[in-house]
């Protein structure tokens, strides 16, 4: 399990580094927004006004750097908490302007678990290379962190299903709400000059599809906890969730990259098996030389 945790560290912190880099212009846009729109939430609930522009800039610079270093496992006990904290802060700040996005919630929570699980930096990391003697980890180390991240992933989907029942009742599965959500989102994009899905018109025309699609969504969400009961069920559910996000992307042009790339769902998947395959690629060979991934000196037992 320690190997899966190490792969999760690499995947999740790399995602955080790339996401904050790619979204940097948007994150910096918050410095130009009118302060009247500022509506602090979550961990920033106590703020009375927007923070100084310089602080936003510092977060936008520090977060991807710290995340990249945490992914590499360099001084992990320092860089992982710094990356998790700054990612939480910058995404919370981005969400504090009157509109909540739901794409980075799971990433924020899972990064916190990774930051607490310092053992994640003991394998396939620069720390392990610098101090091989300290990098003793048994195969089962970090299982608690992998399990906790799997629970977080499953829990978010379950909550989404419960919210549908709480707000719309079981009528949600009739398909009408789904139909109106898909059309609303595409029309809004069209009227506000954003690309909309070219497949939306076809999908909306297939009225018979709405109820089955709604039922399938509800089963995926409310049935999410079943993914924790058995390894195989978890894997099938995770792949179904990726398919669900692919459908959302195709029909609504809404991308949940963390979920679509299966990074948030990776605690349920045998991602450690990817490592030997990746190690045979050019990049993988360089990584292997650097981190002694497949060498006999690896301190990892499992």
């Amino acid at each position, binding site marked *: 399990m320690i190997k899966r945790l190490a792969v999760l560290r690499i995947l999740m912190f790399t995602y955080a580094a790339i996401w904050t880099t790619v979204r940097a212009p948007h994150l910096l846009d918050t410095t130009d927004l009118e302060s009247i729109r500022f509506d602090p939430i979550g961990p920033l609930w106590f703020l009375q006004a927007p923070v100084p522009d310089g602080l936003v800039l510092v977060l936008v610079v520090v977060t991807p750097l710290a995340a990249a270093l945490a992914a590499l496992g360099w001084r992990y006990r320092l860089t992982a908490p710094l990356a998790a904290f700054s990612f939480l802060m910058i995404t919370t700040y981005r969400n504090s302007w009157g*509109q909540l996005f*739901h794409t980075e919630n799971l990433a924020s929570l899972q990064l916190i678990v990774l930051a607490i699980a310092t053992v994640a930096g003991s394998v396939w990391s620069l720390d392990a290379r610098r101090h091989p003697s300290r990098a003793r980890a048994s195969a089962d180390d970090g299982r608690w962190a992998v399990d906790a991240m799997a629970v977080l992933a499953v829990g978010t989907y379950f909550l989404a299903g419960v919210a549908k029942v709480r707000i719309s009742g079981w009528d949600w599965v009739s398909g009408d*709400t789904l139909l109106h959500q898909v059309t*609303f989102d595409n029309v809004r994009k069209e009227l506000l000059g954003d690309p909309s899905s070219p497949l939306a018109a076809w999908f909306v025309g297939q009225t018979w599809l709405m109820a089955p699609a709604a039922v399938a969504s509800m089963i995926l969400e409310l049935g999410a906890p079943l993914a924790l009961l058995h390894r195989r069920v978890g894997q099938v559910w995770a792949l179904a969730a990726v398919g669900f996000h692919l459908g959302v992307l195709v029909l609504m042009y809404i991308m949940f990259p963390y979920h679509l790339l299966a990074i948030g769902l990776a605690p349920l998947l045998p991602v450690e098996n990817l490592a030997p395959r990746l190690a045979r690629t050019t990049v993988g060979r360089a990584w292997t030389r650097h981190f002694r991934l497949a060498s006999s000196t690896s301190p990892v037992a499992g």
Partner: protein
Amino acid sequence: MRSRLRRLAPALAAVLVLSPLVRVAESDTYPLSTYPMFTADRGSIHDFATVVGVDGAGAVVRLSPEVIAGTDEVVLASVTVERAVARDRAEGLCEAVAARAGRPLTEIIVRSETVDLVAHIVDDEPALAIVEHARCDVTP
């Protein structure tokens, strides 16, 4: 110790992620969300607050979220226009958009469009009604 941690950590994660269940479903926050998106039936007829441009030939031109609200997020742009209309600040928004838009547009209009969602998507039906909130010139 290790076995206790192995049991406790997932349980704590479950309590944390499910804690929004004690809140009102519509009461959303971050990162512990109730995930209320896609839950409510928006109905088949909907009012959209929008901002459009008018070119030299008098044709209506759709503007990007960047021009409308200085952001690449369509949802933020939508909220910006909705709030400006609701708070009677459409004229201020109109001027701000005009400053960002520039030529070849000649005018900016802040307006609400009532749309039959399905008819618009499937048959490209025009808006059922349009209410203008503000109109301003684009200065060269």
